[in-house]
């Protein structure tokens, strides 16, 4: 029985030591990214049942840029078009003549841009659409034009105030290649994400489905629980200013941790506790 006890203790203690050592390693040295995200990018979970689960984790929201002939939406298709050469570069095989349309999902490195050119471009697009709708309404004040104008005004307000400003930029199989590509930009976040390629037989076009981030939730420790306990769940139909902002770092293993959380007008950091 003594040997079982020793082996059991060895398994439990060694595993925990390895896990915690990994956490320390991730947080050591220079962080891979450092951003301040708001409720626009880090939201309450959709179904937050405080009764059964007292832990709080925030969901990371990101978008893909809308296509040229597409409207801008808060929740985009999470799919991008790629060439065959890019597909092969990412480690996928081109579809064969049998064309089973089945390829494995793979973890790749994604670059996300925060509040940069892609967001500005989306904002301009929505503004332009709204201006066009406004002019159409001014020239012909009928019900459809009025409805269109109001819809686009709402979309514009959302884009300015509540939509996520985190946009997918690029994907690569190699972290170093991606990091060096964006080395001069401070608002780039490189994370791991799950991707799956598709092939459209009709258009003969490859596309890459950006399924999900490997780490899509960020846990909040008890030190900041009071901030969130006083907040109600976000009304997704309304357009509301973000109620908090979170200072984050991503480490060597691309795993994030929270430095501080600001509630509007108040600053509470871990170091000040």
């Amino acid at each position, binding site marked *: *029985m003594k040997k*079982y*006890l020793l*082996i*059991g*203790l060895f*398994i*439990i*203690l060694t*595993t*925990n030591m390895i*896990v*915690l050592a*990994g*956490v320390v390693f991730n947080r050591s040295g220079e962080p891979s990214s450092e951003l301040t995200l708001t409720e626009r990018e880090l939201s309450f979970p959709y179904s937050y049942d405080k009764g*059964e*689960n*007292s*832990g*709080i*984790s925030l969901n990371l929201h990101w978008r893909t840029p809308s296509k040229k002939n597409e409207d801008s939406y808060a929740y985009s298709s999470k799919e991008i078009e790629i060439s065959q050469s890019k597909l092969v570069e990412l*480690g996928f095989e081109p579809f*064969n003549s*049998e064309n*089973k349309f*089945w390829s*494995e*999902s*793979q*973890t790749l490195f994604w670059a996300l841009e925060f509040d940069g050119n892609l967001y500005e471009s989306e904002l301009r697009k929505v503004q332009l659409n709204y201006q066009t709708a406004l002019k159409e309404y001014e020239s012909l004040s009928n019900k459809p034009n009025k409805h269109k104008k109001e819809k686009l005004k709402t979309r514009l307000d959302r884009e300015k105030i509540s939509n996520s400003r985190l946009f997918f930029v690029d994907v690569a199989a190699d972290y170093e290649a991606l990091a060096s590509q964006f080395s001069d930009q401070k608002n780039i976040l490189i994370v*791991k994400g*799950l991707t799956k390629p598709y092939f459209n037989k009709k258009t003969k076009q490859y596309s890459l489905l950006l399924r999900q981030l*490997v*780490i899509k*939730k*960020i*846990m909040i*420790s*008890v*030190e900041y*629980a009071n901030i969130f306990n006083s907040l109600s769940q976000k009304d997704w139909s309304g357009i509301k200013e973000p109620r908090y902002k979170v200072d984050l770092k991503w480490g060597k*293993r*691309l*795993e*994030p*941790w929270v430095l501080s959380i600001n509630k509007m007008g108040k600053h509470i950091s871990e170091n000040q506790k």
Partner: protein
Amino acid sequence: MDAKQVSQLEAQARVDQIQSFKKELNTLQSEDVIQLTQTQKLKLNDYHSALQKKLSSHYEIDICIESKQLTWGMKIASLFGALTMAASIFFLFYQFWGLIGTFTQVSLLICAPILLLLISLYLTQQEKHAYFSKIAAFASLSCFVLNLSMLGQIFNITPSPNAFVIWAAFSFLLAYACNAKLMLFFALVSISCFISMKLGTFSGMYWINFGERPENFFIPGLIIFLLPQFITHKNYLGFEVIYRVMAMISVFIPILILSNWGRVSYLNWSSGMVEGFYQIIGFGLSISAIFLGIKRHWHHVTHTANVFFILFLYTKFFDWWWQWMPKYIFFFILALSSLLVLIIFKRLRLTKVNVGAVL
């Protein structure tokens, strides 16, 4: 008979044999086939009483049918207790973890499985059948699973398949320490998942999607089936059964899936060809397993293979006839096929009985 040199299974079998012998002897005496003298009866009773007492002192033996029924009840209660205790621990932690600091969370997560491991090992030494120790062991495993999964959430760690091999190792430890089949079940599930995930990763997929390619389960199934050949389980009642049945399930279910959905195969053939291939494999393998089970007296292998053979057969019938055949004829044919199987088994059984009678 030295009680220490026999296993729990052998001891129970001997007691059952004594009970059967007593019943048969009473019947023979009442029909005047045989009569024992008083001295012989006393000697026989004394011998059997002493033997049962000796075996009972080392193992928890069921002397009569009532105690057997109670034992079954205790096993069911123990299983239910273990599962509900594990669920309770999970929900308890989720209820309160957001209210405590990170250091306290980590400390509790590490200490809980250690404490319950100590309790389960202590109880194993105190109890003969170790019902309470099995509950404690399962609770310890639950705490360890919670330990790693919660650390992952607290520190936003990238999920990894390596957790499954750690959980498997811990489950195996508890299974053999506490003689707990439930722990062995979870150990085999964990190690199957881990090997399948790794095989999936080697083929280029994300490890969580290992289920997208059922063939990932073949190698772990084969390994688990062969393990009892190399590890003696004399003192571990029912462990070999768990190994073989789990192995067969992890092989046959993927074959069943692939025989109906060929596009998820690794094989670079057309879906139709893959499905046909796996249908043949499924039938062949189940028939081979039936004969292996009969030859080796592995009843559990025979029964499991029977179940899958019937599933393969009726799935084929469904494919061929369901769309166009009137439903009453379809089910009538199924009934006829069952009768045919019944006749075949009856003939085989009769042959065995005749051979046995001759010998």
